[in-house]
């Protein structure tokens, strides 16, 4: 019995040994004898992308006013065409066939040169072919021509919020990743590993059971949901383009934000670019001027000076001062925009008539220490907006002791901040004295299906609610009584506004006397605002004041938002406006 058992064991052992030898021989054949062939085939498969290497990435969504999400960045699917110079038979005929269906391909000379390079086995000659064209070309079955599936980043809005959405490119590495805008900030959420689509269930089962049950990638991979409303964004972009072209400005920009939450509803700058056609875009255009560039904003800083002084108790709305038209501080002359004296007037006139002498008087009354404390709180830190490369403000004059510097800062000269810093600071007046964090993304929709809202809750109280309300009433009066000589007033809606005209700094020192930076801000309804708007246009030609360049743009946006969002009236209209 034992001998019989031993015999059977030997037979089984012999069988196993035989199979092992067979495998070894086969392995030798594959690895050594046919190694080069398989390596070449693998290389070709890798280069062509194949189905396992298709580009994948999460989507970025705009959010309409009714909550519907529209893709701002997604993926497009089509075909690429590659040739094998070693097997191609008639390069001229292939070029004719490819160029007949592809909108982008190599030039004829480059194509023929590539087809003649017999050392290569794979050259991509055309990309982004639509489905029908790709299938039609594949059906021709041309020798030496491969028609392969391809996927690429696609922006349905084209140039809509291009600076904010950002782009995907190779950057310094050999993998596609977000380089600017939200594509960059949320790259870790949007990026996908190439194998995530075609994961092998059983391979995962044997290699990592845990990942099947709780995949760590599901906790951070997803889609990005923005607060940008596409219709409002389109309107803002058109208005900015119109202003910029009308006045031949160097650039223009604007932000529309919910002052109570910091949610940015629209954010745009001009000039812009088409995200689906980056071939002719200069790199300087890719950054977001609204978070990267600092400007001296001029008189829209006055409400912040006034709110600071009201909050500190340095002045009250009833306080008066004697406006002489011009004053001399530290041997420097500061004048009102029209050089005219107003006599003894209350604080509201400083905002309504945009008086530099008055703002300087308020700053002096406030004192350097308190002025420094308020403005450091307003502009001392970056806003934390979810855009890359955010710049900080230039606040060097706050560290000086010369009163003229503080007087200049009180009306927005000698202090340079980014547009997003400016709207955040002005938002504190609109939001009862509390400063919020501006942001573009409201939530991450995870791959697991869970939507994770982002917490932008960091809020900073800068002014008392009373000081904010008193400043608002001054800005409100400017809209009703002064802007366009009262014609801009909306009988059923209170709107708080302020214009700003700053002289542009000269590279040789000092300021130009004939070149300006125009800005305009406003929020409505004044005492429970849903929207705050900041607009600017840089170096407009043949025009001096912001009230000339940006008032109609601002009013167009206000009326558009009232209609689009059905903002209910906040005051009764008893008169007829014309």
């Amino acid at each position, binding site marked *: 019995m034992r001998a019989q058992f031993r015999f*059977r064991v030997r037979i089984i052992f012999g069988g196993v040994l035989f199979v092992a030898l067979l495998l070894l021989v086969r392995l030798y054949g594959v690895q050594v004898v046919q190694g080069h062939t398989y390596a070449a085939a693998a290389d070709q498969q890798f280069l062509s992308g194949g*189905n396992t290497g*298709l580009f*994948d990435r999460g*989507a970025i969504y705009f959010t309409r006013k009714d909550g519907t999400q*529209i*893709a701002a960045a*997604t*993926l*497009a*699917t*089509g075909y690429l065409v590659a040739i094998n110079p070693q097997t191609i038979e008639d390069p001229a005929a292939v070029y004719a066939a490819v160029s007949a269906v592809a909108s982008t391909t190599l030039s004829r000379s480059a194509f023929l040169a590539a087809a003649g390079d017999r050392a290569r086995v794979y050259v991509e000659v055309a990309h982004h072919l639509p*489905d029908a064209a790709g299938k039609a070309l594949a059906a021709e079955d041309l020798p030496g021509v491969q028609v392969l*599936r391809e*996927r690429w980043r*696609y922006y*349905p*809005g*084209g140039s*809509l919020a291009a600076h904010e959405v950002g782009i995907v490119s190779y950057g310094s590495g050999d993998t596609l990743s977000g380089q600017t805008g939200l594509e960059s900030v949320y790259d870790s959420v949007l990026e996908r590993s190439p194998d995530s*689509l*075609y*994961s*092998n*269930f*059983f391979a995962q089962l044997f290699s990592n059971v845990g990942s099947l049950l709780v995949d760590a990638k599901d906790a951070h991979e997803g889609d990005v949901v923005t607060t940008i409303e*596409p*219709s409002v964004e*389109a*309107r803002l*972009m*058109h208005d900015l383009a119109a202003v910029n072209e009308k006045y031949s400005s160097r650039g223009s920009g604007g932000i529309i934000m919910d002052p109570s939450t910091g949610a940015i509803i629209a954010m745009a700058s001009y000039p812009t670019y088409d995200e689906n056609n980056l071939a002719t875009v200069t790199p300087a255009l890719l950054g977001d001027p609204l978070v990267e560039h600092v400007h001296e904003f001029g008189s829209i800083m006055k409400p912040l000076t006034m709110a600071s002084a009201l909050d500190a108790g340095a002045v009250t709305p009833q306080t008066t001062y004697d406006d002489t038209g011009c004053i001399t501080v530290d041997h420097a002359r500061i004048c009102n925009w029209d050089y005219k004296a107003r006599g003894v007037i209350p604080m509201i006139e400083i905002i309504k008539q945009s008086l530099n002498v008055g703002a300087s008087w308020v700053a002096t009354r406030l004192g350097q220490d308190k002025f420094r404390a308020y403005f450091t709180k307003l502009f001392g830190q970056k806003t934390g907006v979810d855009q890359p490369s955010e710049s900080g403000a230039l606040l060097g004059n706050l560290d000086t002791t010369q009163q003229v510097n503080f007087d200049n800062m009180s009306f927005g000269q000698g202090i340079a901040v980014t547009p997003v810093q400016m709207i955040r600071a002005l938002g504190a007046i609109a939001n009862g004295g509390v400063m919020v964090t501006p942001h573009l993304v409201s939530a991450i929709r995870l791959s697991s299906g869970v939507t994770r809202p982002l917490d932008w809750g960091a809020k900073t109280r800068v002014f008392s609610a009373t000081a904010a309300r008193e400043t608002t009433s001054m800005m409100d009066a400017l809209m009703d009584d002064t802007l366009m000589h009262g014609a801009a007033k909306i*009988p*059923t809606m209170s709107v708080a506004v302020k214009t700003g005209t700053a002289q542009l700094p000269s590279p040789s020192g000092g300021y130009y006397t004939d070149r300006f930076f125009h800005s305009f801000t406003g929020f409505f309804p004044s005492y429970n605002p849903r929207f705050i708007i900041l607009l600017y246009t840089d170096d407009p030609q043949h025009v001096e004041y912001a009230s000339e360049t940006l008032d109609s743009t601002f009013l167009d946006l206000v009326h558009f938002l009232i209609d689009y969002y059905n903002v*209910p*009236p906040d*005051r*009764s*209209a*008893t008169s*007829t*406006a*014309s």
Partner: protein
Amino acid sequence: MPMRNLSFRPHLSFQALCGWTVGALALAYVALIAVVMSYGAMTVSFSQSVKDDEASVAGLEARYLAAINSIEGTDYRVAGYAKPVAITYVPAQSATALR
């Protein structure tokens, strides 16, 4: 009628049991391979299908956004519309007036 022995006595030897087990495992292995291949093929097919559909939706979204862009960019004065000479606002009514 003679009594029958109803008690069950297994006649399966150890070697036979091993043989059946090996056979069952081999069958399961082949089935597993078939399932894995089918699963892989279906995964690829479904993923491709989903991405194709998403790309189609992206095309529709592009048309929608282009329409918005066109509407917001329309200058109605060029289209023949004139700015109203006067605007009359309807006075806001109190809540009680609606009852």
